[in-house]
Every structure is written in C-alpha cells, then in structure tokens.
C-alpha cells in the first residue's frame, strides 16, 4: 500500500509539474552584456550581443558577415531593461554564456553599483565574466564593431585582454566577481580596462586603451598605458609575460627590450615611529634579453648588471607613477588599505573611516629586484663589417 502510493504520487509529481526546460533552438546566446545610462530619458539602456547559431560541420568561417546581432532596450532598472529585450526578441535570451560585461562611461561615472547589483544578483550570470569600461562610445556601438578574426567582439575583448597580458603585460583583467569584491570591500578599489573604438583609415577597431580607476563606486579617472602597467606589476599573484623597453646602457636615445618571464610582488605596509604609514613594495622579476637597437656589445656581465639596474629603475618609476596617479585620483586601486587591515588590523580600525585622508599622502618604498636570464638565438650583439 505504502509503496504503491509513493510510486503513484511520484509519477503524478513528474507529470503535474510544468516543464521548465527550454529547447536549444528556442534560445539565443548572449555573449556580451552592456549597460549604459541614458541621461536624456533618465533610463537604463541594456544592450546584448547575441550570437547566431553556427551551422554544423565547420562551415562557419572566421569572418561570417553577421555572426551576431546587437539588441538594446531601455528600462527604468537594469533588470527591466534586460527583460524588455524580449519585446523585440523572439528567442529566449540565455545569459550564462556571456563572456564580457561592458560598462558604459555614463553609468561608470554615475554609480557602478547600479549595474553591478543587477549582474551580481542574477544567478544566470557567471561571476567570472570579464569586465571592461567603454569610453568615447556606448556599449551598444562598441559591440557593433567587429574585432579582427573574431566575429564576436564581446568574446574578442576578453581574448585581447588575455593575450595582451601574455605578450605585453599592461592591463590586468578583472571579472565581475572581483570587481564586486573590490567595490564593496573597504581599502581596495577596482581598476578596469577601458575599451574604445578607434577609427583607422577605412575601418573601426576595438582597442584597449587605458584603464578606469574607481573610487566610492564611481569612476574617478583614467590611467594611461604606463600607469596601467605600473599597476600590473603589483598584481600580487605570479605573473608571466609582457615586455619592458628600457634605454640602452650605451646610448640612452636607443632602446633595449626585455621580456618578462615572471614577476612576483609583495606589498607590506608598516607604520613607523611617527605614525606614518609606509608601504613597502618588493618586486622580483625575471627577464630575458629580447632586442637591442644598437650594435654595441651588451651581452657581458657588466652591461647585464647595468641593464638589470636600469630595468629595475624603470619598473620602479612605472610603479611610482601609478601610485602617484592613484593618489591623485584618490582611488586605492592597489588595496593598500586592505593590506594594512590584514597586517595591522588595530591601526586599520582607527583610520578606516577616513582612509582617503591618509591615502593621498602615504609614503611608499619600492624595491625592485630585476634579473636578466637569457638571450635568445644570438649570444652576442651584431657586428658590422
């Protein structure tokens, strides 16, 4: 009796519950999400880059004319704007595949939390979605532009940030999760790469250009390439890749390029006797000799040492520039405050409330240890007849 009752109710349960499932062909996959603030209408504008399904059998090509469509809608809240998309879209939008979230300049300057709230609250959006701020254009326009070889520009942007980190080492990628964490945690602020549309002779391309520093939920300013790289050195986990160009030891007009194999930064705040906060930054970096512009013999022990020194100075300069810029903008992107709270919670509790009062005149003590390791195919410099 018991068993049959249980079974029949189970079967009924299965049949009675409505089907929440969706056919794949009823959906459309969102690759990029963008949000901006339309000041004129006092409304949010939500735009999404939707990928068109690729026909099977690898018949797609890299340059499919229209591999995607960009749709956008406005609404009073970001969520509503997103739902409003269904007014023009005959498919059910799927958010979990999104790879980039784009924050419009307007909304970043108004209040980033407005956007982030809707993203973080939504269970359909993964927290490892990359984040960029777009300036000089709207997210919608940005997504309309194709990146070379990658028809889906939203996917392209994350790849660009990844690859430039491996080859150039300028911008540090940030995900929504980290962004939220940094935005909400006292003593640390996010730094987000900026994507813009650059017009060349006959076409438009997306370019990562500078990064946006936030302070108190608002974008307060922009770091240029050099400063962004200064920030990148200090990203605390092990970094690999990137290059640095330093003046040549024999001729300061010419340059020597070094490739960075790995860097590791340690940031330790301390409070000296006078009660000043001093941040000790220790960076160890390994590099390879990659290119020289002169024909001088640079590959000997003496010059190696000199180059190590110059490179260390150069890195130090970049870091210092970034810190100065951050202090100008009053945005603690390096997380000095948070570091302090970890090392010296007591002191932190005292100054937590007006941290930015202290932040702008924090002293830093940067120590860079750069090691040159190898040179590539040639052992010595070019000799001329």
């Amino acid at each position, binding site marked *: 009796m018991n068993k049959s009752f249980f079974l029949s109710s189970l079967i009924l349960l299965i049949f009675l519950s409505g089907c929440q499932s969706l056919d794949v062909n009823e959906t459309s996959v969102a690759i990029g999400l963008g949000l901006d603030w339309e000041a004129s209408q006092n409304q949010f504008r939500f735009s999404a880059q939707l990928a068109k399904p690729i026909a099977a059998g690898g018949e797609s090509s*890299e340059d499919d004319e229209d591999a995607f469509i960009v749709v956008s809608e406005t609404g009073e809240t970001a969520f509503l704007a997103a739902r409003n998309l269904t007014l023009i879209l005959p498919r059910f939008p799927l958010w979990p595949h999104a790879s980039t979230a784009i924050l419009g300049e307007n909304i970043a300057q108004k209040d980033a939390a407005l956007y982030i709230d809707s993203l973080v609250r939504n269970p359909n959006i993964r927290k490892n979605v990359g984040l960029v701020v777009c300036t000089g254009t709207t997210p919608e326009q940005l997504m309309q532009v194709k990146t070379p070889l990658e028809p889906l520009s939203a996917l392209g942007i994350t790849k660009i940030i990844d690859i430039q980190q491996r*080859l*150039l080492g300028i911008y540090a990628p940030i995900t929504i999760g980290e962004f939220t964490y940094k935005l909400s945690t006292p003593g640390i602020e996010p730094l987000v790469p900026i994507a813009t549309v650059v017009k060349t002779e006959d076409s438009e391309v997306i370019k990562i250009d500078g990064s946006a520093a936030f302070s108190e939920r608002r974008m307060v300013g922009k770091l240029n390439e050099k400063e962004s790289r200064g920030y990148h050195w200090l990203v605390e986990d092990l970094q690999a890749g990137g290059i640095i160009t330093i003046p040549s030891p024999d001729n300061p007009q010419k340059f020597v*390029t070094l490739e960075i194999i790995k860097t590791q930064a340690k940031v330790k705040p301390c409070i000296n006797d006078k009660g000043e906060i001093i941040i000790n930054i220790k960076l160890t970096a390994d590099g390879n000799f990659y290119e020289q512009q002169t024909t001088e013999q640079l590959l000997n022990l003496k010059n190696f040492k000199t180059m190590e020194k110059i490179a260390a100075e150069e890195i130090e300069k970049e870091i210092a520039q970034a810190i100065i810029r951050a202090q100008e903008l009053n945005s603690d992107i390096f997380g000095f405050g948070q570091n302090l709270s970890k090392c010296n919670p007591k002191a932190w509790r005292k100054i937590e409330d007006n941290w930015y009062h202290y932040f702008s005149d924090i002293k830093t003590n940067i120590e860079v240890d750069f090691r040159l390791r190898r040179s*590539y195919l040639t052992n010595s410099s070019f000799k001329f007849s």
Partner: protein
Amino acid sequence: MRKKIINSCLIILLILSSGCWSSLNINDTAVCSGLGVDITDTGKISVMVQINKSVNPQNEEGKLTEGAFVVVSGSGDSITEASRKVTLSLPRMPIWSHADLFLLGENLVTEDLSILYDFLFRNRNIRKSSYALVANKASLGKIYNSDCPMALCSARGILKILFSQEKNLGIYLPVTIKDFFIMASTPGIDPFLPMVTVRKDLEDKDILTLDGTAIFKNNKMVGDLNETESRGLYWLNTKTAGSCIVVTLSDNPENKVSLQACKINSKIRPRIKDNELVMDITCNVDFNITEIIGIVDEEDEELMVKIQNAANKKVASHIRQAVAKGQKANSDFLGFGLSISRYQPKLWENIEDDWENRFPSVRTNIEVKSNLLRSNLIFNDVFLVNKKGGKP
C-alpha cells in the same frame, strides 16, 4: 613499499603541478603571412602585420581570395614593443613563424637599419628563410592592403611575383633575411634588397609590382638600381637560369632576337696589374633563342655570331651600369671586397680599412661570353625559310 608510494606521489604531483605553459590552442592563434617595420613621422617604430584568415576546406575555391586577410598595426619604442602592441586590438595570438615576407619601410631604410638587425636575428619567431623587401614610395599599410590577383594575400602574392620573375624574366634577386644578414655582417660586401611598390592598373585599382633594387651602405639605403642595373646584379649573382633579354642586331634595328638564359656562370676575381687593382668580371651565359623578329637574311653561322656579340654587349652593359651605380653610391653590393678577401687574402688585410675610399675608383674589366645553344622548335626565322624556298 613506502618508498614506492612516495615516488608515485611525487610523479603525480609533478604531472599535476606542470601546467601546459607553452601550449596554445590553435583556434586562439592567427597566422601572420607578412610583417613590416617602419618608422612613423613621430619617430616611433610601427609594425604592420598581415594576417591570414583560416581557410575552410569545404568552401568553394573562388571564395578564397576575397578578404582572406586582415592587416593590423602597432607602434612603440622598439620593434618588439610595436609588434606586441598589435595585440591591443587583436583577439588572437599572432604566430610569427609562418611569415614569409618581411617588408622594410622607406623611412626605416633611409634612417638606420641597425635597430632592425638584432631583432631579426635574436627573435626565434622570425624565420630566417623568409624574404625581405623594401617598400618603395608606398606605405606598408598600402602594400599590405592592396590586392594581388590569384593570391591568398598580398604578402604571398609579392613572393610569388618575386619568384616567377626570377625564373621567367630575371631582373630582381630574392634575398632572404639570412642572406641579407650575411651580407650585412661580412666585411667586403654590402647588402641589397628588391623593392616593391604599388601601381595603378587599368581599372584604377592598386596592384603590386616590383620596382628596383635598394642598395645599402653602413646600414642605410644609399641608392636604388633601376631595371637594367638590377639585371647587372642578377647576372653576377644568380644561380637560377631563365632570365630573358632582347637584343637588337647591329645592322638593322628592326631585327630583334629574344634570348633566354639557360646557364649562367659568373665570377669576380681580383687581379693586380701594374700595381693597380683590377676586378675581372667574367660572365658566361648559355642562351636559347626564343623569338626572332624581323627578316634576317643571313647565313646561320654569321647570324649566330651576330646574336652572340649583341648579347655579350647587352649583358656587359647591364653589368657595367650596375658597377657604375655601386661605385657612385659607394656601396659594394657586388662583393668586390669579399672577392679580394677570398682570393687575395694578404692584399685584403692591407686594404681592408681603406676599402671604403678605394672602392669607388677600382677598375673593372668586364668580359661576357655568350653561347647560343638551341633555338627551340624552329630552327630559322619563319620568313627566312619562306624566302629561301622562293629563291632559285
């Protein structure tokens, strides 16, 4: 037993801890077919990259050529930096080692090449067997963006043109990075590179064409050879036969004979004559007759001698012009110095330091010997045969 467990744990850890550092998924890469370096007006170095799009095997052939490439560029303080700045707007990892073409911009070659050498040879991703050319009177972007008919992209197109003209026409010599490098680093020879430019075709579209040879001295381009002078260089350097020339017979300017070289053997040898250095340039060429224009009313043997003489003169004049140009620009691209160092090493030791001053006034003695081998399918001029047949 315990030892075994520890060992196996170590191995497993080793495997797990080893990420795949250098691994790169093939769909995250972009194949570069051509590279180019130039200096911008602001003094920065700019790098231009032509990237092939992947080719779908199931596509029809016709679709291949249209927009099969993209051109991206970056700029920076050094070549490496500039080339890597490309990635700021390229969502793929560029693979350099497939690039067959290396273009040098006009500004770069006229300013200073020394910034380039180290990059070219130290970088493991640059293929040393790829070909170098100089962009003449056109920006790199223009060259890479222009069409090249029947080729996947302009970079490959230029190379195809370079090879086919070498085999069929014989004007310009392809120079690989390795050759260029050897010429630059060996005392007694200066490098040269073929030049490419953009020209308008009949429908007013940009097409690529080879135009002249750039010659260098002290890491700078000091002049260029025109077509005839380039031919002079070609006669002295080539190993591929196939060059085509047209000679005019001495008696009648209407009578023209096209000759195709099928074997070229040339030598440059130093000789001391009356305490003076003379460079003996000998060039032996075997020709085939490919075409005779005009009515030639001569006996066979005389005709042959005439053609040979004309050919000798022509080739010698090519060489002479090239030598003159080189001496004028003080660029020893023919390698006179090298030849002295090889055949008169003692003499070279004495004059090596002074070579730059001595080179422009070195006397040359050009000797060309041509030899007619076959006259392809017909033996005589068609008209000649007819005429002969008509005679009693």
